[in-house]
Each structure stands twice: as structure tokens, then as C-alpha cells.
């Protein structure tokens, strides 16, 4: 029993971080219909920001989080301006943007690798290796803090989407781009803003990741399929769905890791991705088959 609680807690801890990683991806897809394969590499860029803040000046990664967010949001604006604005009317838009983001992922990986080399790194503030004990069950502090902060950020994002004017515009554009444009929403501006927010969320997720996982520039390939499984399962574009899928799959993965073998825990995500694509391509919470 104790072990079951323990495994569940570890799964929830991971789920919190994955939820933040996936929600930015989901937002970008919802508004722009871009499957952003570069998202994990941007998360790594955010992790490097937090890492160097801690290494050089001893700034806590949680304090570096806003810095990483703003920095990555600026990179997002740049990427949008350079790569995506001009292609919005192309006929093979969705397929082409996938390849384009794949190329961007390689560019970012190459740039990070050339600057910082491909060694394993982890930010190590004091809480990263510490834990709370309740009886025999332990809660790792790093994962707890990361999960709480990411829940806070997702809560803010949800409130922003629900109550602010830009949030209305973003949701309207997600639902129907043409209708939103007809009603006077500046869809290009909304696209730019949501792209910046989505990439900014990648930066925030990166800062949290930097003390939860060890990372190196080439690691983003391992995360692409994991994040895709969360977003596809949640229904592309649905942030609530992504969050639920993150917690659900992370808990299952934790159980697979504990009872089958730790090497197989990531298999949970890949198999889930395959099964969802096959049997319910619109995802658990998606309304219509977007990708078909």
C-alpha cells in the first residue's frame, strides 16, 4: 500500500512538470495549427538559462524562471517573424510547418551543443535532492516545488485565457480562425502573442526541468514523442485535456517504472500516442478530428 502511494506521488510530481511542458505546445497548436517539434529544444534552452543563472551567479532556478520565460518569449517572437508569418497561406501549411519546426529544433540543438557541449547537466539548488517524509512515504522537494509552480502558472494561464480580452481573442481564434477574423479579431497579432506565450511557457518549463531532470542539448528528441503523446491524448489545442493527460500518463508511467522496469516507463507515452492516434485521433477531449 505504502509503495502504491509512493509511486503515485512520484507520478504526480512528474505530471506537474509535463503538464506545463505540454500546455505551451497545446496553445501554439490551438491557435496557429503548428505542430511545434521545436518545443522540447526550446525547453532545453530555458533549462540552460536557469542553469547558467545558478552556476554563474547562484540565482535560484525558481527566481530565474521569469527571466527564462521572457527570454524565450522574445525568441518565440523572433521565430514567428522569421519562419511562420509568411507561410500562413501556403497550401501544405500544416505539413510544411512540422518540417520547418523540425529544422528549427536541429538549429537550436546544434547551437546549444556548439556553445555548451553535450554533457549531462543539472541545476542543483539545495532542495533538488531533499525530500519531505510522511511516515515512510517521501515527497522529493524539487518535484513538489516544480509541480506546485507549474500548477500556479497553468492556473494563471487559464485565468488569462478566460478573463482577459486577449484571452477571449485567443480562444475565439482557436475555435474558428476565419470567424474570429470576421468579427474583428486581429488573427495575426493573436497568432504572434499566443506563439510568444507558448514559447515563454517552454522557457518556464525549462527552468523547472533544470532541477528535476538532467539535460543536454540532444535530449529534446526523447521529449518530443513524450510531449506529443500528452498533447495528442488531451486533444490537440485543449489545455485542460493536456493537463489531465499529463497526470494520467505520468502516474501510469510511474507504475510501469516501479513494477515492470524503469527502462520501460517512457514506453507508456509512446504506446499511448500510438493507441490514441489509431483509435481516437481527436484525443480524449478534442471535439473533432483536427489532424485527419
Amino acid at each position, binding site marked *: 500500500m505504502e509503495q502504491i502511494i509512493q509511486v503515485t506521488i512520484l507520478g504526480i510530481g512528474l505530471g506537474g512538470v509535463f503538464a506545463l511542458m505540454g500546455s505551451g505546445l497545446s496553445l501554439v497548436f490551438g491557435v496557429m495549427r503548428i505542430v511545434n517539434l521545436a518545443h522540447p529544444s526550446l525547453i532545453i534552452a530555458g533549462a540552460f538559462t536557469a542553469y547558467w543563472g545558478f552556476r554563474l551567479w547562484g540565482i535560484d532556478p525558481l527566481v530565474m524562471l521569469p527571466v527564462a520565460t521572457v527570454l524565450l518569449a522574445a525568441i518565440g517572437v523572433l521565430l514567428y517573424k522569421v519562419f511562420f508569418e509568411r507561410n500562413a497561406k501556403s497550401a501544405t501549411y500544416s505539413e*510544411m510547418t*512540422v518540417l520547418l519546426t523540425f*529544422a528549427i529544433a*536541429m*538549429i537550436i540543438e546544434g547551437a546549444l551543443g*556548439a556553445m555548451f557541449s553535450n554533457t549531462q547537466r543539472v541545476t542543483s539548488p539545495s532542495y533538488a535532492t531533499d525530500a519531505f517524509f510522511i511516515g515512510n512515504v517521501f515527497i522529493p522537494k524539487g518535484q513538489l516545488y516544480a509541480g506546485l509552480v507549474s500548477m500556479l502558472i497553468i492556473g494563471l494561464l487559464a485565468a488569462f485565457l478566460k478573463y482577459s480580452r486577449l484571452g477571449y481573442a485567443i480562444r475565439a481564434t482557436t475555435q474558428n480562425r476565419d470567424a474570429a477574423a470576421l468579427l474583428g479579431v486581429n488573427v495575426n497579432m493573436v497568432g504572434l502573442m499566443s506563439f510568444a506565450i507558448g514559447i515563454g511557457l517552454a522557457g518556464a518549463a525549462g527552468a523547472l526541468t533544470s532541477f528535476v531532470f538532467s539535460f543536454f*542539448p540532444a535530449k529534446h528528441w526523447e521529449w518530443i514523442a513524450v510531449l506529443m503523446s500528452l498533447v*495528442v491524448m488531451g486533444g490537440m489545442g485543449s489545455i485542460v485535456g493536456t493537463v489531465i493527460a499529463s497526470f494520467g500518463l505520468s502516474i501510469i508511467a510511474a507504475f510501469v517504472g516501479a513494477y515492470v522496469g524503469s527502462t520501460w516507463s517512457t514506453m507508456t507515452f509512446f504506446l499511448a500516442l500510438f493507441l490514441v492516434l489509431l483509435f481516437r*485521433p481527436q484525443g480524449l477531449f478534442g471535439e473533432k478530428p483536427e*489532424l485527419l
Partner: protein
Amino acid sequence: MESQMIKSTSGDVLSARAAHNERLARRADKTRALWFPLAILVLLLALPLLQFVGNYNYMLHLVLLTASYVAMAAGWNILGGFAGYVSLGHNVFFAIGGYFAGMILARFGISAIIMAPVAGLVAAAFGYAIGLITLRVRGPAFIISSIAMVMIARLLFDNWHFVGGANGVTLPAPNLSSQWAKLPYYYAMLAIAALTVWSSYRIKHSKFGLGLRAISKDEIKAESAGIDTRFYKVTAFAISAFFIGMTGAVWGEYLTYIRPSIFLVILIAANMVLMCILGGKGTVAGPVIGAVLLVAFNEFFVAMMGASELNILGTGLIMAVMLMFFPLGIVGTLALKGRLPRILNWD
């Protein structure tokens, strides 16, 4: 009486159409410079003669590497170019071919060059089965599922003890002097590359290829026009896996070891895609030109900078520039402008 008349007129129509098509084909043949690829092939077949006068192993290696990429890119092109299903996971079949032939070589000592067609068939069988599953979705969903395919394969091969896990298996090296050691693989790879390009030409000019092109333009219309799209797509997937599997078989023995980190890295899949985009997706000459250019570029980059990270950066940059400004690739863009030199018109 009446039905017989219809039969005879329809026969006339068919023969007239056949004659017309023949004329069109003859005219197309005149603008095509078939001698050019054949001349290159003959030149490359004679290239090892240089070994008599000096040591040109590096040059042979480069040609061999280019040939392997030509075979892989042209194989990928059958699915990604003709049918329009972009796969970022085709190195899985490279791995399947390499591992199948490599394990046979390690266990029974049968050379991978002899086993290459069998390895190709094994890869094609896997391709058929995987295609039945993943080709149910299209567009971005298919691309995502192809990446997941690589991840699953990597996890399986890394943890499969029979094939050595992450450390892989060392294969016996051939018993030849270093001067001639590369030759069997050189000729094998050249043969595979030539076969792949020739097959892709034949496929493009067949009814099957026409169906694939219809699928890439508009799958729903193709389906309603009576094309069995599912069978066509899955078959194209299996055929492209066949050629890539054969390449993997020879490549594994050439390297004398098989290991997940050689076959199942995403850069190889990215290279296949990039070569086709660079040269021109859906053309016969495109993958060949893309492969030659990319191998040359990589060698230049490694020689100049020496760092694989910059190599990844450069690959990404070329891919982004091509996608943004020349999505049709070199052959496609030139053909669109009517400036395609005759020697590059292989379609």
C-alpha cells in the same frame, strides 16, 4: 452484333490511345538524357581501378556513403515524395535491415551482401505491418507517429539482449587486404542505389505511381476515383522500407558493427527527408542530387569545423531555407521555371 461493334470501336480507341501515349513517351524520351546517369554509373563502376595506381580509399568511402544515401533517399521518396506521406522514422527500416543481416552474419557467417535482398524483404514485411497501423492517419499526425516509431524501436533495440543491447554486436571483418577491402561493399551499395533509382523511375511511370501521385494531391478524390488508397499507401510504405532495409544490411557489414546509436539516430531520418527536399520531392533525380550535395556539404563542414554539433546546426539551416524559399527543391524549382538542364531530367 451491336455489342461486337462496341467492342471493336473500344478496341480501336484503346489502341489509338496506346499509340498516342507511345508518341508522347517518345517525345519525352528525346528531351531526356538517359546517357548521363548511365555514364556516371559506368564511371563509378570503373573508379576502383584507381586503386592500382594509388590509395583512393577515402574517395571510395565517399562514393559508397553517397550511394547508400541515394538508395535511402530514393527509397524514402517512394512514400514521402510520390505518395506525399512524410515520414521522419524511416531509419527504423535501416536498423531492421542492418540488424537482420548483421545477426545472420554473426551467427552463420553468411555475408550481408548476399542476405541484403532478404533483409530488405524483412524490412518490407515490418514496413507493411507498421504501415497498416500508422497510415490510418495523415498529415502532422502521421509525422508524429513516425517519430514515435523511432523512439519505440530505439527503446526495444537498446534493451534487447539477444542483439547486444545498447553495445550492439561486432561483426567479423572481411579477409581482404586494405587495398581491396572496400570493393565488395562499394559494388553492392552502387548496385542497390542504381536499383532503387531505376525502380523509383519505373514506379513513377506505372499505374501504381500514378495512383500514389493522386493520393498525394487529394486522397479523398483519389479514393472516390476508385483507387484502393489503403493498399497503395501501405504497399508504397513496404517498398520504401525494402530499399532502406537492403542499404542497412550492407552498411552494417561495411562498418563491421551494428549498434542502435548508428542506425536509430534521428539525424539519419532527417538526412533522408532533407535530401529529398533539397533535390526535389517526388522527382527521380531529386534524391540523387540531394544526396550528392548533402554528403559533399557534410564532408566540407566536418573538414572545416570538425564538430558534429555545427553539422546538426548546418543541416537544420539548409532544411529551413529550402522549405521556406524552395519547397519544390532544386529539380522541382528549375522544372517549374523551364530551366531544368536536360542531363537532370530523369523523370
